[in-house]
Each structure stands twice: as structure tokens, then as C-alpha cells.
């Protein structure tokens, strides 16, 4: 009884974080080392169509006779680059706007907050589809669309924290020694935001992965034959009755695993950095 409670208490946070990191790093390594790991090209026919998983083709082959394992590991590059670039985009814009809005206050703050809140409450995938549909489906536009829809997530959090920190004593002190606004924001407030930004980043990356996959599933991400997990799944829809389960199972599993990896990191970081829950 005693040791049981103790053990689990100790693994909280750290355990989630470690599990998440292992998943994410493994997937990143797989995609980075794709050329080394698999001898096959992801966009060339390597054998018959619809070969079930075997030693030679661990994830089987698809309709055009391409190796699914190769498509999955190379596909990781697409997903990761879209998601990382998109989250960096929303993180930098959201943080900058949130910082300025929270620090400057007044009309600017009210106006910005209002617009951000309006976007925030709107179903994100629907907005992302609308944006990519307008801009045209390609990798850059997918990044832009996903980047835009998550700006409010960072904005809200950064703005809230900035308001708190702004009121604290050491900012008063900094102002009294003559630091200007920009300096206060960058030198004094921003560093204090970093832990929270980190937590939001990892939770948000999980969201972004699912949104990217959703876009790809609906056909709004990269053009074929570039491999992309969500798109593989769209193709897989046709094979429910054919029994070609490997065309559905593996791509979706990868999406879910990667999103889960980031969510685990987020959960672990929340536990460690922030004793109170962030919901």
C-alpha cells in the first residue's frame, strides 16, 4: 500500500514527459533517417499492389505498389515540417500580439482580444479548410492556415500572463530605473512566459497534428504523390471492405501516436512546471 502510492506519485509528470519524448523523438528520428531506414522510394512502385505486411514490406504495399513503410517514414517529414512551422508561426505571432496587447492595454487590447476570442470560439478545422480552400491546397498554405487558426491560443494565454506580470513589483522596479516598454516586454516579461509557452506549445502541437491530418484527409494538404499520413487515410477509406487493413491502420496510428506524444509532453510539463492543472 505504502510503496504503491509513493511510486506512482514519483512517476507522475516525469513519466508522462519521458513517454512523450520517447514517442516524439522516435518519430522524428524515423523521418529524418528515412533514407537510411528504408531502401525504397516513397513515390515509386516497388512491387505488386496490395501486398499485406511482410518482412520485406513491414506495412505492406498500396494500390500503386508503393511500399507503405517508406511512405509512412517519409510522410513523417511532411507532417512534422507542416506542424512545426505552423506552430512556430502561431507561437511567434500569438506571443507578440498577446504581449503587446496585454502590456499596452486600452483600445488596442480590447479590439485585439475581441477578434482573437471570436476566432478562438470558432471550430478550428472548419476555418482551416476554408482558408486552404481559398488559398489552394499546398504545403505552404496548409502551414499558413494552421498557423492562423492557433494564433488566438497563444494570444489569450500570453495576454493573461502579461497582465499578471505587469502588475508585479519587479516590473515597477524595472520601470523606475528607466527601462523602456520594449525592453521591459522582451527582457523582463517574456522570460517569465517561457514555461507556460512551452506547455501550450506541446499541447498545441498535438492539436496542429490532428488538424493537419484532418486537412490532408479532406484533401487540402500536400499534392500527391508526396506522402502524407492524413492523405493515406483518405485513400484508405476505399479499402474498408477489401480487407486491406494496413492501408488504414498504420497511417492513422502514426497520426494518433505523434499527437499523443506531444500531448504527453504537455501533460508532463504541466505537472512539473505548474503544480496546478492547466485545462
Amino acid at each position: 500500500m505504502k510503496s504503491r502510492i509513493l511510486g506512482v506519485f514519483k512517476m507522475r509528470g516525469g513519466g508522462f514527459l519521458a513517454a512523450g519524448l520517447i514517442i516524439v523523438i522516435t518519430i522524428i528520428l524515423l523521418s529524418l533517417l528515412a533514407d537510411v531506414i528504408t531502401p525504397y522510394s516513397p513515390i515509386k512502385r516497388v512491387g505488386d499492389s496490395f501486398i499485406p505486411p511482410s518482412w520485406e514490406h513491414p506495412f505492406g504495399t498500396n494500390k500503386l505498389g508503393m511500399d507503405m513503410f517508406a511512405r509512412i517514414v517519409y510522410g513523417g517529414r511532411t507532417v512534422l515540417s507542416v506542424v512545426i512551422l505552423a506552430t512556430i508561426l502561431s507561437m511567434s505571432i500569438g506571443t507578440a500580439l498577446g504581449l503587446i496587447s496585454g502590456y499596452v492595454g486600452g483600445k488596442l487590447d480590447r479590439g485585439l482580444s475581441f477578434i482573437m476570442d471570436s476566432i478562438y470560439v470558432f471550430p478550428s478545422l472548419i476555418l482551416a479548410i476554408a482558408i486552404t480552400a481559398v488559398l489552394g491546397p499546398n504545403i505552404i498554405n496548409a502551414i499558413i492556415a494552421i498557423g492562423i487558426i492557433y494564433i488566438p491560443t497563444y494570444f489569450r494565454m500570453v495576454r493573461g500572463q502579461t497582465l499578471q506580470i505587469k502588475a508585479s513589483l519587479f516590473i515597477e522596479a524595472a520601470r523606475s530605473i528607466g527601462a523602456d516598454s520594449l525592453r521591459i516586454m522582451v527582457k523582463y516579461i517574456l522570460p517569465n512566459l517561457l514555461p507556460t509557452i512551452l506547455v501550450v506549445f506541446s499541447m498545441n502541437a498535438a492539436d496542429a497534428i490532428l488538424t493537419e491530418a484532418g486537412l490532408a484527409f479532406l484533401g487540402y494538404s500536400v499534392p500527391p504523390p508526396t506522402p502524407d499520413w492524413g492523405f493515406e487515410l483518405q485513400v484508405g477509406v476505399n479499402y474498408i471492405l477489401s480487407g486491406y487493413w494496413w492501408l488504414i491502420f498504420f497511417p492513422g496510428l502514426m497520426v494518433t501516436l505523434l499527437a499523443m506524444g506531444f500531448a504527453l509532453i504537455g501533460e508532463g510539463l504541466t505537472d512539473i512546471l505548474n503544480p496546478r492543472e492547466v485545462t
Partner: protein
Amino acid sequence: MKGISRITIIGIIIVILIIAGVAYYMMLQTQAPAKEVIVIGVTDKVTDIDPANAYDFYTWEVLNNIMEGLTKYKPGTTEITMGIAESYTVSDDGLTWTFKLRKNLKFADGTPCKAQDVVRSIKRVMEIQGDPSWLVTSFVDDVVALDDYTVQFKLKHAVSYFLALLATPPYFPVHPNYKPHEIDSDQTAGGVGPYMIKEWKRNELLVLEENPNYYGEKPKTKRIVIKFYQSSSALRLALESGEIDIAWRTLSPQDIEGLRGKKGISVLEVPGAAIRYIILNTQMDPTSSKLVRQALAAAIDRKDICKRVYLDTWVPLYSLIPNGMWSHEDVFKKKYGEGPNLDLAKSLLKQAGYSESNKLHIELWYTPTHYGDTEADLATVLKEQWEATGMIEVTIKSEEWGAYVDDARKGVFMASLFGWYPDYIDPDDYTTPFLDSRANSWTGSGYSNDEVDSLLDQASTSTDINTRTNLYKQVQTILADDVPIIPLIQGKLFIAYKSDIKGIVLDPVMLFRYYLVYRG
């Protein structure tokens, strides 16, 4: 805290039991459809049940079952026979056509259908200017009712295939209930056809029932229910589970493959009239070079496309005029071989100044959903085939249908994938819209050849089939040499049905006639 878990475990067990019970009960519910009813499943959609605006394949099929025109196709052939008209005469200059109507024509509710109704309906189409109205306005100058049973057309110019045009929905008489000046999308009053609409729920179901006032032979089955599905898989499963009797358009290649050989299910396959092709831009570098276009044509392996992309549900096509239609000639096969002719392609590319180090860059466009979900595969395989020359690099791009059509017309695509369903069954419909410089602006190929234009003019006004055949053969030969368009494949039609269903007739016209099917 142990009390809670016991309660919740019991709760979970109860919920599971309820779900299991309900599921079991519902499995017992699966029952066979009634005898005098045949249920047909489709993944297509009915757009407007109004001939003034309907311009898609499936809606035309429905219209053909609830309405009829002056002429119609004889089932199983591409031969035109009389419909609600008994006979016709045509003036020597081919400009005045006079039709005599049958005497006993009535709409489903008993309202008589006279020559004035025919004229009213056609004029309505001309006035509303819906999508298919050009099928009337491009040809007909005026239409009048000489008496209750005589309709007379004055044409703008002689048209050799006018009888085939008359068999298209814009010429069908509609019930007076149709709003006279605007599109009436959900109007169920119908026309003079073997069936009438009993119930209509958009995207869910359409119930047709025998028209008691139809002049002709009674339908073999009293009631036809059409169910609309959203995916081929759902359609296939519905057939397998007995929810529907016939799975019609459109089963995906792998589902057709899966249904073949299933017990109690038959699959019928006939050649279709749909064709697919690549449009090349003759005004844009590098496809402005004839050598490049010829090289692209030579490198294609149509059999591989049919096998890998379509699991042999399509067949290779070596001309724009489909296999089996009069005047068809395998011009591309003659010129470039069955393909892939990589040696020829390479030497053509070398002549055009390209090499392994100086590669030809091609942008290939497709649209992801309009032609089914195999489109990305098609583009991928084409890329693979062209790149097999070692001297071409292909970038694939896509756009949604709306922007796609728009940009094609603007001529911004270098190479783009399109497809064609015929409006009327005549070689003209497979040549003029593509090759005639006055009619092909939508393709964006920028192709213009005076010789072709004049050959097509002669062919469309001539009434002699031998003359016309000869003219179309010449056009096809020029096509294979100039290559503004590379024909790829021709569709087959598949219909899967329970083996006790009889009377399914499919022909290149591609219209499924519901009134001929019955349960044997």
C-alpha cells in the same frame, strides 16, 4: 473509496447489455425488400429535377425515366427511334424539322400533353438559359406548334445529329406545374415517361412509381426506390447486406473486384462512353513544341494505367472518339505504338533539345474529387511513366473543380487531366468541343487548325454517314500528329445486382432504364 467502483461496474455492465441487446434486436430487423419493389443504390446525386438546368449524368438518367422526348434511343443500341413523336419530316436544306405527336399523350396526373406543351417546355429552356440550354439555343432558331399534334423546328444551320439532340432532356416536355420562368429544382410533376415521382428526399431517397397514363408499355416493376449513398463502400455493403437490389453508379474499382464472385451477386460490365484525356497547352512553353507533345504521348503506358489505377475497370483509348463508335480509329496506337514507347519518346525529346542533364519540366494538374478519388493515383502514375524516360521531371498540382475549370479556360495549365461524358451519341460530340478552334476555348489548349475546323464543319452538316466517317478519320489522324490532347482511357460501365434481378440493359448511351428491370 470502494463503494463507487462497484456501482459503476454494474452501470457499465448494464449499458453494455443494453447495447448488445439492442444491436442483436436490430440485426434481426434486417428484412428483405418487398417483391414488387426494386431498390437501386447510387453514390451520385440528383441536382435539379428540372430539364432546364440539370446537366449531369445521373440526373439525366432519372429524367429519362420520368420523361420522354420526341425521339429516344432504342435500348441496348445507339440507334434513335421515335419517342412521343410518331413520325417526322425534314426539309431538303435540313433547316425545317416537323414532328407528328402521338394522340394519347398524358402527364402522370392525367393532364393531356399536346404540341403546345412541347413548345412551351423547349422555349422555357431557352428562356431560363440554364446549364444545358446551349443544346437547344446553339441549334434551334424557333419552335412552333402548328396544331395540337404538330411541332415544327427552324434550325440556325443544318445539324446532322439533330435527332440525337432531341433525345436529350432539354427537349423533353414538362408538366405545366413547372415554374414558367425560373428553375424549379424540386418539382416532382415530371413529364411523359414510364414512371412518376412518388417521394423525393434530396440526397436520401427517390421513389418512382408506375405512371398509369403512360402511352407505352407498362414498366416491368411497379415501384423503384433509389437510395443515395455517400461512398462506394457503403453502396457495396448495402448490396451485400441485402439493403438494395442493384448497386449502380459508382462502385470503386476495388469494390467491383470485391463483389465479383460473391455468391448471389452478379456483375454486369459493358463499354461506356466516358473518356479521359490529358489536355496540353499549345501556347505555353515547353508544350508549345509539337515534339514535346508527341514525346509525352509516346511515353504513356495506357495498360498500366488501367491495371494499376483502375484495376481494369477502364480500357485503353487511342483516339478521342470512343472504341465501338462508328468512325473510331486507333490513331495514337498507329503512330506511337501500344506504349510505352520510351525509345521514341527519348529521341523526340532529344530532337527538342532535352537530355538527362537538361530535363523537360512538366506541370501536371488534376482536380481531386470531380472525377472520383482515383485522380491522385492517375496523376502519380503519369508522373512515374513520364519520368521513366529519364529526361522529364513532373510536378503535380491540383485545384478544386471550380477554380480548375476556371483556370483551364484561362489557359494557365500546362498539362491537365479532364474527362468527358457525351451529351449526345455522335462523333461530333467527341471532336468539335475539343478541336474546333471556335468551340474549344474551355480546354485552354489554345489549339487552332484551319484544316480541322473546316473538316468538322463539313462533318456536322453532312447527312451521309460514309462521308462523315471519312471526315472524322482525317480529323483523328491530324489529332494524333498535333497532339493538343492525349486520349488515355475509356470507361466501362459496371452494375452489380442480386442474381434474381433480370432485365438489366446497359448500352453506350449509359442510361439505365429502370422500367425494364424485374425480379425473376
